[in-house]
């Protein structure tokens, strides 16, 4: 029985959507990108001009893993390349802590 023992979902990164991505266009400044789709999950210490938007979700019950990422590259401050092949739009279904709906 896969459901036992109970494991919680492990979600990581930013769950951006295709509509978010469509707002991006080469030449945007870093600020504009951040306003459009938010702060990236990874701003690597040694790669200041590369922003990675990572999506990762491991479902507690099924242990199935959905993962994806979008990497943005900047040259002197402007967006120069969007690598979205491995983009994976994840929309986790709502939690079912409802066995006792005591919203807090």
């Amino acid at each position, binding site marked *: 029985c896969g459901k036992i*023992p*109970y494991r919680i979902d492990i*979600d990581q990164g930013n769950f951006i959507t295709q509509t978010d991505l469509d707002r991006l266009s080469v030449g945007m400044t870093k600020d504009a990108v951040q306003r459009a789709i938010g*702060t990236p999950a990874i701003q690597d210490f040694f790669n200041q001009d590369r922003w990675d938007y990572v999506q990762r979700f491991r479902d507690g019950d099924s242990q199935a893993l959905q993962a994806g990422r979008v990497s943005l590259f900047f040259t002197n401050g402007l967006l120069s390349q969007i690598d979205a092949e491995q983009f994976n739009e994840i929309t986790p279904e709502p939690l079912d802590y409802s*066995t*006792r709906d005591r919203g*807090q």
Partner: protein
Amino acid sequence: ETFTVEDVRVDGLQRITAGSFFNYLPVRQGDRLDEADFPQIIRQLYQTDFFDYINLYKEGNTLIVEVEERPVIGEIEIVGNKEIKTDDLLNGLSGLGISPGNTFDVAKLKQAERELLNVYHARSKFDVIIAMQENPLPDNRVQLNVDIQEGISARIQQINIVGNKAFSEKEILKKIDLSTTKWHSLFTKNDRYSGDKLRGDIAEIEAFYLDRGFLDFKINSTQVSLTDDKKGVYITVSLVEGLPYRVKSVDFVGTDAIDKAQLNDMIAFEVGDYYARKAVRETQQNIKNALGDKSYAFSAVQIIPDIDRENNEVSLTYAIDKGRKTTVRRIQFAGNYKTNDEVLRREMRQFESAPYNHTKIARSLERIQRLQNITSVTRKEVPVAGQPDQVNIVYEVTESLPRTITAGVGYGSSSGFLFNLGYETANFFGTGNTFAFDFNNSTETRQYSFTFTDPYYTENGVSRTFNLYYREQDEDEAEIGDWTSDNWGAFLRYGIPINEYESFRIGGGYRGIEIKTGDEVAPEIPDYLAENGERYDEFVFDFAWTNDTRDKTVFSTSGAVTRLNAEIVVPGSDETYYKLGARNRTYFGISDNLLLSVRGDLSYGDGYGSTEELPFFRNYYAGGLTTIRGFESNSLGPKWSNDDVRGGNLRVTGGAEVIFPWYLGQDAETVRVGSFVDFGNVYSDVDDFDVSDFRYSAGLFLIWRSPVGPLNLSYGVPLNEEDGDKIENFQFTIGVPL
């Protein structure tokens, strides 16, 4: 004009050493100085707070500094204070810099007088007279005399509500704290006026009306006046009720994040009901929580009422602005000096660098609150500077006294003196495992037990527990019968969570028991031992399912815990039998601050295979502090032929407790007082079960989690005792874990 300072001379220093003074004087030998800078230097020197008088002048190229040091406070004499103890006053004064050894400053004294007056007025001593006087002592010191005439504490003579039509004054006054003197005013002091209490009460009256549809409700004026002798306080509240409104319709605007269907079932009231602000706000919070579950941490939900005054109806619109999707950047814990970071972090449902989720964050708080050595936890969400879509979360915990070593002397009204030595650490050598050693010695039982638990044997919270024990039980002391038993055993159990609130435990082990009988024992026991032997070895397999939705493990205020357990002694043991148990305790909030808790307990055991019935030494007993209060411990149910208690293999008990409100307030964490009704009995077998045999008792109980150990005290009165029942109205235990 300017001059170079060849030398600096200081006159008048007493307490301050020259070295210290030159450290504060912003002038060195050889500096070029202009007389125009003198005022600036003097101002700087005043800031040191040491001097009453400073003067600078030039004599040739020598700078002369004349100072008069402020006097130092010597003794402080306080007379006439009864309501506030002298130590507290001295601490208060030293907080303002007025204490022996400090420099004396008239301004600070005036400020102290004002603050002391306010303290007395806050305790409704409006007629207090305070005189603070400083008299000089030799060596530039002063003695402070504080003369207080406290006067009488004013009490509320009358609270007059004007303009109430829909509800009686009595009904409204019941809702607020302040009141005229009642029998309990001596303790609750609710007949003493304070501005804050009144503001709180006004808000209560407003909430009372706004929760019953009175949208136009308004407080006209609140007038507070003292009698001229300052002994009485009169409060008059004038209000305009207006008419009650019903809700005509509910609508939502900005439904891109959550669709209307979902929003509709978040509404906490029905269209057509009277408008109730509490329910309207609850709906608002439900929407915010739902948005929080979709990572919108900074959403704004506005309630826009459209009031139709002709037919007294209001249509409500919730304007939803979801804001930006938010990520949780860092989760930090504060106040954990004894508890490892990991012990708290592994309870978290929300991860760092992950989408913000309200339910996970709220549930995490509840899980930390349920940890054994945490008494309280609060959560703060701190926006990250410069990152509008990120937030840090800080959980501030207060740890309870670590029960690392407890050498407690307990006294149970039934078990006599109890000496308990226990060592437990929830973090054995930093490994996050719980290790507990327990030695209990009372007239009734002597027990050594080792327990080793790893609550996170796997990352997902599967726990593993070893338990080893040796126990000598004297049933005579427990008023059960003139026989003793030595028990020993070793068990291994695994705890496996099923979901957020349910888990089951599976395990097994070996246990042994050896029985010796005294001469006054019931004859049936030696016959049984003669037939089956005095020593029994048992191989046990046990299983338990628990659903626990309480907000706290101790002194919970909401939710319920239900437990089903089963124990089977398998073939190969000397006796083969099984035991089943079902237990439930549920907590309800009745009125806004009254708590009801209801519990039920069913235990049944029987033999199988070659064993006809449950061996007598595994029987259930009833009566006493943990089952039916008011009856002597273990005294109910079937008896042997010599009238010793025999117990039985079916026990049904239950009860209800009402927990008094005022103790839910300030010390809800440490004290619980209430009234109870207990009922139940034990039967030799299922077919003897008869509800009319139930014993009932009622009474009062007090539980205090004192620093020394829990005190459990009850005064119970049996309602339908029969002859032969042993009564024990007053029962208590100290130091025995709850």
